[in-house]
């Protein structure tokens, strides 16, 4: 008995019962399709959250003062005046896994141009801030080293500011705007970035040299925070370790002292969100797997009915020379072919439904090859697993009794 004959026998048997074959397949089709759709929805939302977070800069590490005890009084973290230029320089010089460092001070206020005004905040940063936060300059330029040292009154503005101060489409470059009554010359416009995952408008921003904001607006000598970028995502934790060492040394902390600063990294945030969406994906896939399981039981059910219904046929096949293994293979191949065909149709159906969901409902959809391979493999295994028992039952029939079965 060779394989092509077996396939022919199984195919002929399936073709004789087209409707039943299709209905059995339907369970598998729906099972596989729902696994694919659910995984697509789960992974789509994970991907979209990840890309939103990484638009904020994936390698970003953020240093801020940690609230400290002074004479038994717990101080507010934002009022701590411990981050200074020497810390920025220490990070720059002593941390090989850091690619960019920028101090940050920010001040809220009203920005005015002509008759228009808008409440916003001004970020005092260095030129490296743009690469850390993944901002890019659309028009004009970033401030230079000289403008930082001279505390020049220059600024770059985000799209939200442009829309509110220059609604009739004039180029803001070279215009003088006033922030808290201090005139600033606009030297650049930032690219649009949209909202971040917390719904914060990232385009509602004015960027100026940190020296300018420190001296001309806030009259302070310290920084509120330091933004740092690690070389890549993987070296983020290494960079953090180096930064802790550098900052402790720069703050002259004894081994027994607590850190008076704290580090926050974007990758932590991403991990948190990823684990939430992973859980969501697993939950969705588990629910979908139940329908695949039910589809598999459907195959077993039908194969049992089929074996009983075809008892005489089995008896005949045995009488004319079918061995146990031949009979078993025939029924096993039938169930595997039902599940494979159902699996293929299910994959197509899953693609279709995912596409419809993403266009109609607008949910982010991501179909990965692993989800297709996985659901298809599970489906074939389902066919073998649930087809095996009925097939064995068929092969164990006694030909004499099977032939006389009414």
């Amino acid at each position: 008995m060779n394989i092509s004959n077996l396939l022919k026998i199984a195919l002929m048997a399936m073709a004789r019962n087209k409707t039943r074959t299709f209905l059995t397949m339907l369970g598998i089709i729906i099972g596989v399709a729902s696994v694919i759709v659910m995984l697509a929805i789960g992974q789509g939302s994970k991907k979209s959250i990840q890309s939103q977070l990484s638009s904020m800069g994936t390698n970003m590490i953020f240093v801020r003062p940690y609230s400290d005890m002074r004479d038994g009084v717990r101080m507010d973290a934002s009022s701590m005046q411990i981050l200074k230029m020497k810390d920025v320089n220490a990070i720059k010089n002593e941390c090989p896994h850091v690619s960019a460092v920028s101090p940050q001070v920010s001040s809220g206020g009203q920005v005015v141009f002509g008759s228009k005004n808008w409440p916003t905040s001004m970020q005092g940063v260095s030129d490296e801030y743009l690469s850390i936060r993944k901002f890019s300059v659309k028009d004009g330029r970033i401030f230079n080293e000289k403008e930082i040292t001279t505390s020049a009154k220059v600024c770059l503005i985000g799209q939200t500011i442009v829309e509110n101060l220059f609604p009739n489409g004039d180029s803001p470059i070279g215009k003088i705007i006033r922030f808290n009554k201090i005139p600033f010359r606009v030297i650049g416009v930032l690219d649009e970035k949209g909202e971040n995952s917390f719904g914060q408008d990232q385009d509602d921003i004015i960027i100026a040299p940190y020296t300018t904001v420190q001296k001309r607006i806030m009259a302070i000598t310290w920084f509120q925070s330091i933004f740092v970028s690690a070389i890549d995502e993987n070296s983020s934790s290494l960079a953090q370790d180096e930064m802790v060492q550098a900052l402790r040394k720069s703050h002259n902390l004894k081994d027994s002292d607590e850190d008076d600063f704290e580090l926050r990294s974007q990758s932590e945030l991403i991990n948190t969100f990823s684990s939430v969406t992973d859980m969501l994906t697993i939950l969705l896939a588990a629910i979908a797997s139940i329908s695949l399981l039910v589809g598999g039981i459907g195959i077993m059910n039908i194969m049992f009915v089929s074996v009983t219904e075809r008892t005489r046929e089995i008896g005949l096949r045995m009488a004319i020379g079918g061995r146990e293994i031949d009979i078993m293979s025939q029924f096993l191949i039938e169930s595997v072919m039902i599940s494979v065909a159902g699996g293929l149709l299910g994959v197509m159906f899953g693609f279709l439904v995912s596409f419809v969901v993403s266009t109609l409902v607008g949910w982010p959809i991501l179909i990965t090859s692993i989800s297709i391979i996985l659901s298809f493999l599970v489906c074939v295994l389902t066919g073998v697993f649930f087809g095996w028992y009925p097939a064995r039952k068929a092969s164990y029939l006694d030909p004499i009794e099977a032939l006389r079965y009414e």
Partner: protein
Amino acid sequence: MNDSIIHIENLQRNFNVGSEVVRALKGVSFNVNEGEFLTIMGASGSGKTTLLNILGCLDKPTDGSYLLDNTPVSSLTKNELARLRNTKIGFVFQSFNLLARTTALENTELPLLYNSTISAKERKKRAIAALEAVGLADRMDHTPNQLSGGQQQRVAIARALVNHPVMILADEATGNLDTKTSYEIMNLFQNLNKQGTTIVFVTHEQDIASLSKRTITLRDGIIISDKKIEDQKSAAWFLENLPVNDENI
């Protein structure tokens, strides 16, 4: 060795029914030579079905020896028995046992599908030849529900012939057919026999037995008579002399 197709010696078959032992065959011996047309007769319970199952290699004797075409059947495994059934025996059943929704040609091809030494081309050629031999060359693409009872049995006979067996084993092959069709089928068997096919035919109808060349009668598991039929009747003759009104019944 001899040239007999079937050589049976002191064949016994016991069944355990609960604590009792039922002796269905109590020592049966006979030979069937090539080209014979043998009918096995007996009332129900006489052991003829048990004998048929053993002859068809579907069952094994409890004791005694059975040589089919010089192959000792008792010592074979299940798979070897299946192979023997596939290559040496052609089965014809009372209820035809054709696969539904499957054409006559595909039904006829079926035994050859279980023989991997035969190519698809050869398979089709032999199935067509077998269908031609039973006079159904024009019905190859018909499914069983498009065929009459007699035609269905012809397909079953073609299926039995297709693997070139050493004998055809028929179990009440005319039991489900009307008188006229029965004679037609018997006529076909007689013609096949004339061409040299060995036929073993199990029946309980005396009329059918009179169309064969030899009759073995069983009762209570032993042979009570084994006689040659000197004046073998011709099924064709019966067909010609059927009462006219028979067709209108």
